[in-house]
């Protein structure tokens, strides 16, 4: 038996089929929403985006679910219209977190209903009682892997899940987390679809887009700018380990070299600094190394600056040396570096200062 989803549910979970259908039934044009009569909705949409910029996770206002439902596509249009990957990511992340919080107070059968309506996942109720937990749902491998690939905690790795007969068994909390991540991925993936490349916000809404961009600016700069040159204390453990091998003159695997070089280039080290690093390695050939580093830095060849491999890849190649507290929230070594830098500068100590010479 299918559960009835209420208007409040549609407001809370904008990714539901029914929410989209509701918005469609209003037959509104995006440009119309700038009109005075919809100012309440517009205000809600703007608040929604600003909340995400401020990382403010606020439950939806259920006193007026209708305007809440319509405010979502409007805020999404503004976010897509900004063409800022930073904003799209931030909005998706915070919306997903909000959904996860809301799901936490829902009963299991409703979560199942939400998952089925929001995504085409073939979820089934299960009744698997283990020693100390109950796995109440199962989901096929493919959608699980797709949604969980965004998580870094080892607990989410397929090998650490209860897998049987092509299905992954989950408890209620995990399913809620998976739904919110699925929602996040949906928002981000949509942004790279072709129809959105040429999307432009209607002129009537342009001033509001400017308002958002102005509001976001300060945060964006803070998130994207890295100090130029390596800050030793912010290095992830994998990079530290590779550097120690280099120091000891050990010869490195191709992947270790690649990871180290891309990491150094991306934190703003010069080709010469990176070359110096490898000076100790036994089979060092300066001419060849310089060529390769310049290539990786995007100075020659395809002009693409290569990024270090993701944590998953490093792990598969045996270069992950174990996690520390920052690793748990990062799925990429640069991501780790950025977070740790932020924490270091936040703590007010002197550790945030540059220390290029000590880097190696």
């Amino acid at each position, binding site marked *: 038996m299918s559960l009835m989803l209420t208007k409040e549910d549609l407001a809370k979970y904008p990714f539901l089929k029914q929410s989209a259908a509701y918005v469609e039934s209003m037959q509104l044009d995006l440009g119309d929403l700038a009109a005075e009569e919809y100012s309440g909705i517009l205000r809600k949409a703007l608040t929604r985006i600003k909340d995400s910029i401020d990382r403010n996770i606020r439950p939806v206002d259920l006193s007026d679910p209708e305007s809440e439902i319509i405010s979502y596509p409007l805020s999404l249009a503004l976010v897509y219209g900004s063409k800022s990957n930073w904003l799209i990511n931030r909005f998706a992340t915070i919306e997903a977190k909000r959904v996860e919080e809301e799901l936490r107070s829902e009963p299991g059968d409703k979560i199942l209903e939400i998952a089925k309506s929001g995504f085409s996942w073939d979820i089934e109720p299960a009744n698997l009682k283990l*020693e100390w937990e109950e796995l109440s749902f199962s989901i096929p491998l493919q959608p699980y892997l*797709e949604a969980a690939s965004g998580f870094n905690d080892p*607990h989410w790795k*397929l*090998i650490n899940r209860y*897998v*049987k007969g092509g299905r992954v068994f989950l408890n209620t909390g995990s399913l809620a987390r998976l739904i919110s991540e699925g929602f996040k991925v949906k928002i981000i993936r949509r942004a790279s679809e072709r129809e959105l490349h040429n999307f432009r916000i209607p002129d009537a809404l342009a001033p509001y887009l400017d308002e958002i961009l102005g509001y976001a600016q300060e945060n964006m700069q803070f998130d994207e700018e890295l100090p130029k040159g390596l800050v030793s204390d912010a290095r992830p453990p994998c990079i530290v380990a590779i550097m120690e091998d280099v120091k000891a003159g050990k*010869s490195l695997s191709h992947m270790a070299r690649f990871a180290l070089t891309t990491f150094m280039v991306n934190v703003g080290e010069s080709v010469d600094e990176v070359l110096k690093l490898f000076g100790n390695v036994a*089979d060092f050939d300066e001419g060849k190394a310089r060529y390769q580093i310049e290539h990786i830095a995007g100075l020659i060849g395809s002009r693409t600056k290569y990024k270090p491999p993701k944590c998953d890849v490093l792990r*598969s190649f045996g270069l992950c040396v174990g996690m520390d507290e920052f690793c748990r929230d990062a799925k990429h070594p640069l991501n780790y570096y950025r977070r740790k830098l932020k924490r270091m500068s936040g703590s007010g100590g002197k550790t945030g200062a540059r220390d290029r010479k000590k880097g190696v």
Partner: protein
Amino acid sequence: MHEIVRKEFSGYYSGLRAEDLEVPDMPQREFAFLQFGGEVMIRHMKFLDPSSLKEYIVENTPAHIYHSSAYYKMPEATDMSEKGWLGADLVFDVDSDHIRTKCKERHDRWRCMECGRDGTGFPPESCPNCGMKKIDTRTWICEDCLEAAKKEVINIIDEYLVPDFGVSGSDFEVFFSGHRGYHIHVRGQTFRMLSGDGRREIADYVRGIGLDIRSHGFRETKNGILIGPDMKDGGWRGRVARAVYEFVNRASLEDLKEAVAPSVAKSLFENKEKFLKSIASDPPYWGGLKGYTLESLEKLAIASIKDLICNIDERVTIDSKRLIRCPNSLHGKSGLRTLRVDYSGIDNFDPLKEAVAFRQGSIRIYVKESPRVRIGDEELGPLKDKTLEVPLALGLYLICRGAAEPR
């Protein structure tokens, strides 16, 4: 490569029935070829049916023939982004080169290209003398290597694909690669649309990478009681429990000492029966031994799963656009066929017999150096600097391996 090999390959392909070259969903696959002596892969070819593929092969006689694991809207497009990826088979590549078999001492050699140090057996990761990683290898295969690869295939299918991933018998095919090992192609919808990240999770799953036993029910309660999974549980949860049971059951005191601290090993060894009985009880009880903690359990689990994890070339599994050998094509480095193996009869499958493509005729060859080799029912070697007449398949094998020349 010698003209004689090309001529024999050409004869083989002329005599082949077109339908033997059938590949599921052929029009959506990219085909690729490597010519004899050629270094550049001829790629982005599309064939609508086996007859047109056969026609091309007979005309050009390539040394190696591949098709994509992926399905494309336009397999003939030269730009990968224009091909229009529609999904891909999931492929497992089991290569006996990756398996540490004892027979490698008999037939494999390595040499450090830097300092010249050499040795026999499985090549070291870096030279034990100078530490460099430029190691040249001369590897051969024998019945034992291929048997080890076959065991690995059975392990992947029976231990992982069927029970955990729910793959049914009609969803996968096993192929002898024509040289060093086997390929498993998993078709069907379950894995078809998986991205590289998802495929990596599958590869890590069968390789035992990233296993965290705490995620599988091993816990220490507040009052210090160790609880853990049941051997009947699904996935890695039950697998770890069963592996620990089996490991402890057959372990000597020395084996245990290698896995856990000496005092724990001793207590575990002395109370073996009791331990095994309590982890097999319902509900299982994982504690009760002196000095035995969650950490020792973790170490024990890691030691126990060693024989269960699969040796695959993970790059092949992760890649959603891999080129793989066509069924019934010849392997240019062995002259043997890439052959579909009936999985129900795999135990009795003898690749060095059944994948022989040239069953008649003989050839006079000069052998530079070769370990003992068997092709079909014919055995040869070890021998060096010798000219002799051998059955065609064996002769072509040695020529393709670069160990002999036609005379």
